[in-house]
Every structure is written in structure tokens, then in C-alpha cells.
């Protein structure tokens, strides 16, 4: 009894000490919300610490979660920089004034699409990488079923692929919303919805997460998965029997973005990080972390495995229009009403 009490006492006093450790102090520090995968976040932060001596506290969350958190914390912001993650939530945060305007001296070194993102958001967010939308098929399954290899969006409507295509639900996933917006831009709204309704017959599941179809394709749970090409490439690099396809009709893309949170407690350090993250040296850290997006700085070497943007027929994606919350709500409501609930 004595021993256990003592053990409890020790446990409690240890606990008390961490309870009392309050929010992190605001000197020589930086809090980053990181919305790419852990492997990429960690070396990024480590490299920045090494370079500047600024202590980085990093929290990894998906971009949707980070947006919700930044919004909820807006009365007393806890984060300084929000790095990575698909552009839509960044745009939305910019629209709502949750993020800070900043013009980095590095802006001139960036690709056009990255600068357009910056302009579209009135300087509140900037592109750091981009990735094209596409699909991938499981080569083993295609061979087993003796199906023709799909090359275009239109090929996915093949009745032989009934229940063999997987894509995320655009309500929960930015990836899938990008596809919805892409279709509307390629085909026009009416035709796009007709296409999606036809595709609905072949969809086996609308997943919650955008990258899930890539994983499902690699495991053979579905024959075709629609996601960002770099998600597919990651599986392929890992040895999955699949092939990624950039559709022949052209495709949309995401712009991974970065924003400084309004009211950041470490504003100077946040700007230092912002500038540094746009340098080729920082952006080159993506490839070793198995992230094969296209970096935004023109001088950054593009990893050999990355889907070459030059080989992909990219559409001129209108981020300002399709990133606005009104248009998004309208399209999603329409998709919900006209596509999602259709009988098969």
C-alpha cells in the first residue's frame, strides 16, 4: 500500500509539472501548422531550425483541420505560419481575413501559378507546390479482367468498369472538389454534371479522404482510383502494381499553399520562415520525403519521379472563382442533390 501510494505521488507530481508548463514563450520561436505529411514536415522544420536557430514548434494536421483550428483560434491566435496543404482552405482563410498579407522578396523567383495564387488572395497566401489531378489503375486487375487501359476521363464511363472506380466525396475532400471544378471547367457545368451522373454508376465508393482511392487501388480494392497524381506516384514508388494516368482531355490541379496567420505572435520569424520556404534549398526537401509534387520556385530541381507538368495537359484553373466559398457551396449542393443520391 505504501509503495503504491508513493508511486501515485510520484506520478502526480510529475504530472503537475507538465500541467503547469504553460503556452510556449514568444522569443526566438515559431509555431508552424504543417499540412503535408509528417515525413516532409519534420525535415523542413529541422532544416529551418538549423539554418536560423529559431526553435520551431510544429503541429501536423490536415488542411481542413488546420483551417477549422485557425478559424476557432482567431480571437487569440496560437499559430504563426500555416505551411502546406491544398490551396482551397488557404484561399478561404484569406477570404475571411484569417491570414496576413505579405509580399516576399522571393515572389519573383516563383512560377506563374504560384504568383497567381498570391494575387488571387490579395497577398494572403502563396503557392509552394502544385500537383495535377489524375487517376491510376491497378495493372494486375486490369490484366486479369482483360480491360482496355483507360487513358481519358471519358474512358472511365466504360460499363465494364461498373463498380470499379473510386473517388472521394467532394464534401469532405478538397481533392474531389478539385475534380468537380475541373470537370465544370473542361466541359461546362451542364455537361460536367451529366458526366458525373454517368460516372456515378461506375463508382463503388465515395471515400472520405482524398488520397484513399490511391491506397485502395494499390491494394486492389478498386481497379481505378481518382486522386492527385503525386499520391499515386507515392504508391508506385513503394512498389504497388499500378499506373498513373494524366487524362487526355486535360486536368485540373491543386496549389499547395502557405499563409501567415493574422495576429501571429512571432511575426518576424514567421516572415523569415515564409521567405526561406520559397527557396530552392527548402523546396528540394520534398523529394527525399517521397513527396513528388512540382515545387513553386523555378530554380528548384524537379524530382525525376514527379509527374512532369509539361507532359500533362493542364487546364487554366480559375482558383479565384472556384475557390470562393459561394461557388463552392453552390456546386457541392448541386452535386449532393443531383449525383450523390442517384440510384445505380
Amino acid at each position: 500500500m505504501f509503495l503504491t501510494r508513493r508511486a501515485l505521488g510520484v506520478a502526480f507530481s510529475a504530472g503537475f509539472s507538465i500541467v503547469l508548463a504553460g503556452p510556449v514563450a514568444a522569443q526566438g520561436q515559431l509555431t508552424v501548422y504543417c499540412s503535408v505529411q509528417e515525413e516532409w514536415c519534420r525535415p523542413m522544420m529541422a532544416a529551418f531550425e538549423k539554418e536560423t536557430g529559431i526553435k520551431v514548434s510544429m503541429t501536423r494536421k490536415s488542411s481542413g483541420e488546420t483551417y477549422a483550428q485557425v478559424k476557432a483560434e482567431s480571437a487569440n491566435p496560437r499559430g504563426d505560419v500555416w505551411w502546406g496543404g491544398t490551396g482551397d482552405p488557404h484561399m478561404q482563410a484569406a477570404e475571411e481575413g484569417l491570414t496576413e498579407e505579405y509580399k516576399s522578396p522571393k515572389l519573383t523567383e516563383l512560377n506563374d501559378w504560384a504568383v497567381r495564387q498570391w494575387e488571387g488572395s490579395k497577398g494572403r497566401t502563396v503557392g509552394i507546390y502544385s500537383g495535377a489531378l489524375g487517376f491510376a489503375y491497378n495493372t494486375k486487375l486490369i490484366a486479369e479482367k482483360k480491360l482496355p487501359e483507360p487513358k481519358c476521363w471519358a474512358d472511365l464511363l466504360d460499363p465494364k468498369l461498373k463498380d470499379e472506380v473510386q473517388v472521394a466525396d467532394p464534401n469532405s475532400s478538397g481533392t474531389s472538389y478539385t475534380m468537380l471544378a475541373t470537370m465544370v471547367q473542361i466541359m461546362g457545368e451542364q455537361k460536367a454534371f451529366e458526366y458525373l451522373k454517368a460516372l456515378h454508376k461506375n463508382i463503388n465508393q465515395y471515400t472520405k479522404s482524398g488520397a484513399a482511392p490511391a491506397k485502395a487501388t494499390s491494394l486492389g480494392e478498386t481497379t481505378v482510383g481518382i486522386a492527385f497524381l503525386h499520391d499515386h506516384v507515392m504508391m508506385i514508388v513503394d512498389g504497388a502494381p499500378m499506373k498513373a494516368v494524366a487524362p487526355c482531355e486535360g486536368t485540373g490541379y491543386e496549389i499547395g499553399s502557405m499563409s501567415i496567420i493574422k495576429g501571429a505572435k512571432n511575426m518576424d520569424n514567421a516572415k523569415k520562415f515564409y521567405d526561406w520556404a520559397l527557396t530552392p534549398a527548402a523546396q528540394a526537401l520534398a523529394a527525399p520525403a517521397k513527396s513528388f509534387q512540382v515545387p513553386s520556385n523555378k530554380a528548384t530541381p524537379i524530382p525525376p519521379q514527379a509527374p512532369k507538368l509539361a507532359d500533362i495537359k493542364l487546364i487554366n484553373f480559375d482558383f479565384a472563382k472556384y475557390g470562393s466559398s459561394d461557388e463552392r457551396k453552390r456546386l457541392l449542393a448541386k452535386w449532393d442533390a443531383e449525383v450523390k443520391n442517384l440510384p445505380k
Partner: protein
Amino acid sequence: MTAITEAAGGSSRPRSAGEGRGKRRTGAESVRSGPLLLAAWIAYALLPWYWLDFQAPAGMAGYPLGPAGSGLALALSGKAWWLAPILIPLIVATVAWRTADPLRRNGLLVFAGALGLWAVLKQGFVVGLKGWNFAWVAALMGGPGPSQAGFGLGAGLLLLCFLLLMCQGLAGRGWCRGDAFIVSAVGIVVALILLFVFFPVSTILASAFQDNAGHLDFALFVAKITDQSIWGLDCVTGRLRCGVAWNTLFLGVLVGVATTALGLAFALIATRTDFRLKGALRILSILPIITPPFVIGLALILLFGRSGAVTAWLSEWFGIPRSRWIYGLPGIFLAQALAFTPIAYMVLVGVVQGIAPSLEEASQTLRASRWTTFRTVTLPLLRPGLANAFLLGFVESLADFGNPLVLGGNFEVLSTKIFFAVVGSATDQGRAAVLSLVLLAFTLLAFWAQQMWIGKKVYVTVGGKGDAGLPLPLPKRVAVACYATALPWALFTASVYVLILVGGFVRSLGRDYTITLDHYLSGFRIEQGAGGLVFSGGAWDSFFATLEVAAMAAPLTAVIGLLTGYLLTRQRFAGLRAFEFSTMLSFAIPGTVIGVSYILAFNVPPFELTGTALILVICFVFRNMPVGVRSAVATLSQIDKSLDEASLTLGARSWTTLRLVVLPLLRPAILATLVYSFVRAMTAVSAVIFLVSAKYNMATTYIVGRVEAGEFGIAIAYASVLIVVMLVAILGFDRLVGKRKLGRREAPPVTVAAGG
């Protein structure tokens, strides 16, 4: 808390034997407010009033003024003049202390306590981080107003002191049979629930009635809550899908029934048979509860998915076509049944043990067969346990988010809908709040139905007379039914876990079965560095943080949960039912909503807690408290109230009674609560996803990140490590808590014939 009330309530000094008796009886002195009053003055005059950053070097500079200044000093120096009115209740309390007339003194104490609470809270909410918090104050006082940080040690302690002073006063006026401990306990629990459940939850639920700009819009609320996507019944009439509310309800009932039945089967086998592998069975029944979310879903896919192991085998050997049946209702149901059966088991095992054998013997002497006895005596006596088990299973299913996320397919439930209403590509906090209200309504309904079903019958089976009866061996058909349900289920669980264990050691589960240690190394590498061992693996930080938080949350949850359960069953006070329901509230609200509501409520002064470990601990404590409450209620309703009363009349105060009489009899409930809260703190996802900070990242958010990135190997490896840690912890708790001694004999063996 206990120390204070004991000191306050008890001047029962040990007396020498010559004096003959120990109980004291000078009534007027039963409550001593001296030490409390002293603490209150210290809190106000000496301790740092505001939340301090202990890492900041300049912490104590300028004391007694400056950031670490005391309330009194800051008030008198004019730096925080709005703290000055707090002096008034303190002086009133001091006057009360010097008052001889008990009635007057207690009245003054109640007044001082209430006024003090009001004064401290009022200034905290009016003067915020950025000046006046309310437009009308700004209009009245002019200017942006002064600013202040969140409550610190001084303010917190002072609030507690005022609360306790008020409770003492109320006890002195005869509340709760004049028991200061009980009144204080009620006061503290109510205050905590108000602060950590009602305050945040009402903050977010208010947004159900607002449009996106924050204006009241009732029509919008009506439109949202009557939406076809929630209540549609198209699946009955046509081929379209049903509303998400019906899906959720249907799944919840299904899971509640299944987990209760399975839990009962396990509990009966564990307590009433001599099944040889009981130990293994117990571990198996506990395993799912200690499994981080996603992992069971993942394992099910790898077993039963279209290219899963079992599916492949069935297709090769029996030509059963591969299909995706696992995605949707069947998959979620299986995963939830796997995950929540242990909860039902833990509730029921205590209740089955608690049934007085003599009642069953009585039935048998009335010529009832074993089966009739089981049906007419044992089962009805199990009612509170069954009802509680069902309620927990149902509510857990409603709140579960990980499994529907992985296995949901096109079957939507409220929890995932709510999650994506907050973080999805069309964020709409109002919609999340509306859906949460629906979920809450279901829970309320289940709670009410449970109350109706248990009714007002008495289920006391642990009386004060001891019980010399022998537990009835199970009737054969019940035993057979138990084995027939529990054993295949156990086998199923076992295979899922073998898969999980293997998963950590192969390159890619489901595709490449090359054996590797890479997953463990990347997460848990330990290197020999210059200054000793270096924990260089990526998972260590979150692992240690998780352990710390869970180790703190578990005992606190047990204390608050069991105390609340004790108050609910053993005390009578106004608003008891409302109080009971409010304890269920945080459990019923989806984790995502709790997470966001905690940020909204605790990111700004006066209660500024985000970014600390404290907010994680608090979140866990109040989220998991209902399990403690339910198991305490279930167990206590079996224990004769006169045991407590006997202890009271022997001069033991409520606290002593609780410690010496109630707690030893509550051991199964304590164990269940400790284990559950520890495990939940280690495995919860949705609530903490917004509360984790760089410093306090939790294991599960790390795992979720891995799953999102498709790195199932590391996720499974990490999950296996957590499972082992939790198993060790559970065994540790088991040893620490010990067995309940009821002075009963063991059940005789029951043997089931091979054919039966």
C-alpha cells in the same frame, strides 16, 4: 479538496481509551471555515493572480506587481482596479468566521461565497485580452478598455475557496443532512461540469441558431434541422438512401444490442463457468478496447476487403465472388461490435458478480429449473447492468468516428458528417452544431428509455448480511449459447489481432509480406548518443506525451466519475436528474464538436488553457467521466444503502465512509473506470485533433497522419506498441485496485458436454 473538508469538518481528535468514546457532539462547531478563509486570503493577497508562463525567464519580475503579481497588490496599485471589489466578499467571509450565531454565520458564508464567485468571474469575463468583452460595457466605460490575461493560480484557488465556503455555509444550514463533504462534493462536481461541459458546449451549440455571419436566424435553423439528408426515408420507399439520422440510429441500436449480448456471454463465461481459457478470453475481450481507432477498420479491410485474405481464400476455394460488402453498414457494425463489446463486458462482469447467490438459490428451492431461475431471477436482476451496457454501446456507436471513416463506404453516419461539416471542403459550423443537436437528442432518448426500463425497482443484492449461497452454475442452454457466441467471436478477435501484430513486421500489409523492422525503427529508434540514450524515432515525442496525459487523466476521471456516481445514487438533492443527465452530455457530443468548442471557450481569458497539457487532460476527464459514473451507479445500486448509514452512525464522515466502505465494494467499477479512461486517453482522436499542440502531440493524431499518408505499416507498428503499453497498464491497474472481497464462495464448475 478532501484535506480541506476533513480539516474543516472534523475536530474528531483521537481520544484516549479512558474517555470511553470517540464521537464528539458539540454541534455548532461542525463546520470550520478558518483554513479555507486563510487559503482564500493567501490566494488573493500573495499568489500570482494571472496565468504564468513558467518557461519565461522574467516570470517573477516585479513581484508583487508585474505579470506574477497578486490580486490584492494589482488592485490596490490601480493596475487592475477591477480586482478590488473582490475584497468585499472576502471581508464578509471573515466577518462570518467571527460570528458566533451558527444560523447567521452560515448565512453570511453562503452570501460571501456566492458574491465572491460572482465578483471573480464577472471581472474575468468583462475585462478580456483585448479590452472590454461586451459592447455595452465599452459604450458605458468608453475606450477599448484595459486588458488582462487568463486566470492563474491565485484566481483559480480563490474561486475554489469561495465555492467551498459557500458549500460549508449551505451544509451548516442543513443541506444534504448537514454533511459538508457531500455539499462540497456536489458543489465542485457541478461547478466543474458547468465550466468544462456546459460552458464550451453551449458556446458551439449556439452557432446552430446563427448564420455564418453570427446573426440569430431561427428560420435557417429550422431549415437545417428538417433537411432531407438528415431525415429522408427514401430507403424504405425506393432505392435512394435514407437520411443520416436513421442510419445512425439503426446502427446504434444494432451495435448496442450486439455488444450487450456478447458482453453478457463473456461475463457469464468469466464468472459462472470453469472454462479453462478464461484468462485468454479476458485478454481477448479487452484487446479491442485498447486498439487505436482505424486499426480495427484497417484490419477488417485486410481480412474481408475485396482483396482481403479471407475473401481471397473464399474465392479460390469456394468460388464465392469477391465483393465489397465490408464497406458500409456491415463493416462499421463489425468494427464497432469488436471495439465496444469489452465495454459491455466490463460493466456486466461486475454486475453478474454482484448478484446474491441466495436469490438464485431461493428460486431453485421454489422448484424452478436452472433455466427458469436464470430467466426469471438472474436476467431481471441484471437489468441495470444490461441497460447500462446497452446505453454505453449505443452512445459509443453514435460517437464513433474512426471506424465509419475507414469502413463507411457510402453509408453515412452523423459523426463523420459532423466532422466534415467542420473540416471538410464545405465548412459550416452551424450545420455541425445542428447535426450535433440531433445526435444529442438521440442520446437523451436512449438515456430516458434506459431509465424507463430499469424503472423504480430495487436491485440491491449486496446486503449487509453476507451471503452464504453458492453462485448458480449456468443452465446448460445458456452455457451453450454463451460459448456459441463468445468463442467464435473470440476467434475472430484473435485473428484480427494476429493480423495487426504481423502487420507491423511486414513491408506492406496486403501486398508485400517481406519481413522488416523498418516500421518500428522509423517510429521507435533508440540510439546510443553522447549523453546516453537518444530517442530518435519520430514517434517518441507523441508517445511520451500521450503516456503522461493518459496517466494523469485516468485517476482524475476515476475520482470525479465515481464521486459523481456516488452522489447520484446515495444522495438526494434538488435537480438530481438534471445533474445526472448533464454528466452524460459530454459523452454524447461528438469529439470533433467538443474539440472545436474547447478552442472557442478556452482559447481566451479568463480560462485560457489551449496549448497546454491541461486542456487535453480536462478534455479526457470530462469526456470519459460518464463511464465512471455509469459503472459506479450500476455497482452502487447493488449495494445496500444501510452499509453507508451504518458507517455514518459509527462516526465516520462521508469521506471516511466513501474510503473505507464504499470504495472497497466499488473495486470492479474503479478498475473499469481507470482502464477505460486510460485507454480512451491513449486512443481518442476526434476530440483532441484540435487540442494537440507541438509540445503535446498525441499518439493517435500521429497515427491518423500516417494512415492519411497511406503508411499503414508505421501506423500498425505504433498501434501494436500502444496495445502492449496499455495491456501492461491494465494489468498494473488490476494489481493496484485488487479484488473485491464479498466473502462469497466460488462458483462450482459447470461442464458442457462435448456434444452440447
